[in-house]
């Protein structure tokens, strides 16, 4: 970087709006895909953990260990299996969502007051009906809380996929920013990541309020 290189070059931003938009789009796509897939898998795992309680310990142990592997390394390690592809990125990102999502879904469902479940049973709900109509709605705020954390985490992690040729906004931060000593690109990338995380968080919060109007006072 030259000493006279300004921190923010607006002309560059304007000239590169197309590229920036494209990176943002990639970023959003990876976040949405990973969180959705992660949620579906976690939901299955959580149901398994609840119907066969002994599986909960091992599930948490495995997902915690995955969580402890540095992301930079995990992405690279998947290359021999899935190549330098979008799949590699998504698989790793999905793995990282599991711990938070499984734990929150289980805690949420466990947290449904037993008297509520009993009342529902007493009113003649079958087990499946009871799950969809009573337990799941009551557990929704805590489940969405897990989704919010998982989403914000994933927004940050997508940036690391730059090292395997993807990266979304991470490309702006690392490749054109840090490697080439070009601060404008870094700050644009970071700012958009933050905006994306905040917007995603607010969207999920809004979703939760819509889904559970009775719990309006709880969300933060």
């Amino acid at each position, binding site marked *: 970087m030259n000493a006279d290189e300004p921190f923010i070059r607006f002309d560059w931003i304007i000239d590169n709006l197309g590229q920036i938009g494209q990176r943002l789009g990639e970023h959003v796509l990876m976040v949405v895909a990973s969180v959705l897939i992660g949620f579906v898998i976690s939901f299955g795992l959580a149901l398994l953990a609840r119907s066969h309680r002994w599986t909960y310990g091992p599930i948490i142990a495995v997902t915690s260990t995955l969580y402890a592997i*540095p992301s930079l*390394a995990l992405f690279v390690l998947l290359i*021999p299996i899935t190549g330098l592809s979008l799949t590699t990125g998504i698989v790793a990102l999905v793995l990282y969502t599991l711990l938070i999502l499984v734990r929150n879904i289980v805690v949420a469902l*466990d947290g449904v007051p037993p008297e509520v479940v009993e009342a529902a049973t007493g009113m003649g709900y079958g087990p499946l009906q009871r799950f969809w109509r009573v337990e799941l709605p009551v557990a929704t705020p805590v489940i969405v809380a897990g989704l919010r954390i998982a989403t*914000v985490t994933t927004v940050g992690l997508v*940036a690391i996929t730059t*090292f395997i040729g993807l990266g979304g906004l991470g490309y702006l931060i690392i490749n054109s920013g840090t490697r080439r000593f070009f*601060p404008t690109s870094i700050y644009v990338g970071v700012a958009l990541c*933050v905006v994306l995380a905040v917007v995603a968080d607010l969207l999920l919060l809004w979703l939760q309020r819509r889904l559970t109007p009775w719990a309006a006072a709880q969300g*933060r």
Partner: protein
Amino acid sequence: MELFGQGIAWLADPANWTDPRNGIFLRLWEHVSLSAAALAAAIAIGLPIGVWIGHTGRGATAVIAIANIGRAVPSIGWLGIVFPLTLVAFGRGGLGFVPSVIALTALGIPPIVTNAYAGMREVDADLVEAGRGMGMREMDVVRQVEIPVALPVILAGIRVSAVQIVATATLAAIVGGGTLGDFIIQGIFVRALDRVVGAAILVAILAILTELAFSLLERRAISPGIRRGGQAAPIEPGGVALPRVAG
């Protein structure tokens, strides 16, 4: 699995450990010292802020909002933000340790602040009033009542922060901070997956050890009278923090 074996083999070769310019011992030392410095700084800054806003309730909304935005900054983003600044401030000498410590500190502060705040707020108002009613000064109330009762949550925040810093220190390699992440970056460029795997194993072990060490510390520091039993708490936005994957 074959890759895993390669990583173990790389770790098993003593020559890889002792190289004075690029050995595992050197990188491990860089990793640990960088993490320790950042954690110490994060505690020194974050803990008083969290305790203060938790005790007074003043400025909480603003501080917590800032901490939450801080959490939304990707870990790599902190390095990106800090390093041009230190480059300008210190020139080429600003590469490496200094921007890494600053970035890791920034990353480590939010969980410490939010947990200290949440822990202090959670302390039963009756306990605080009992303390005051018995003639404690404000500082006594903070030190003898609120902090000990909030300790499980406060220490959990420090633990999360520590694990996060240890994991993210990997990324310092990008700005010349060395650390075990250096092997991963090297490995990517020269396609030497054995050292990527080996370093990844070490970082994972280091993160797990950090977690264990802090759990032990918690067990010793927290009064047996307030060990938390019962139901696991959900992970909440803005609430008690969980480490995030990084590096």
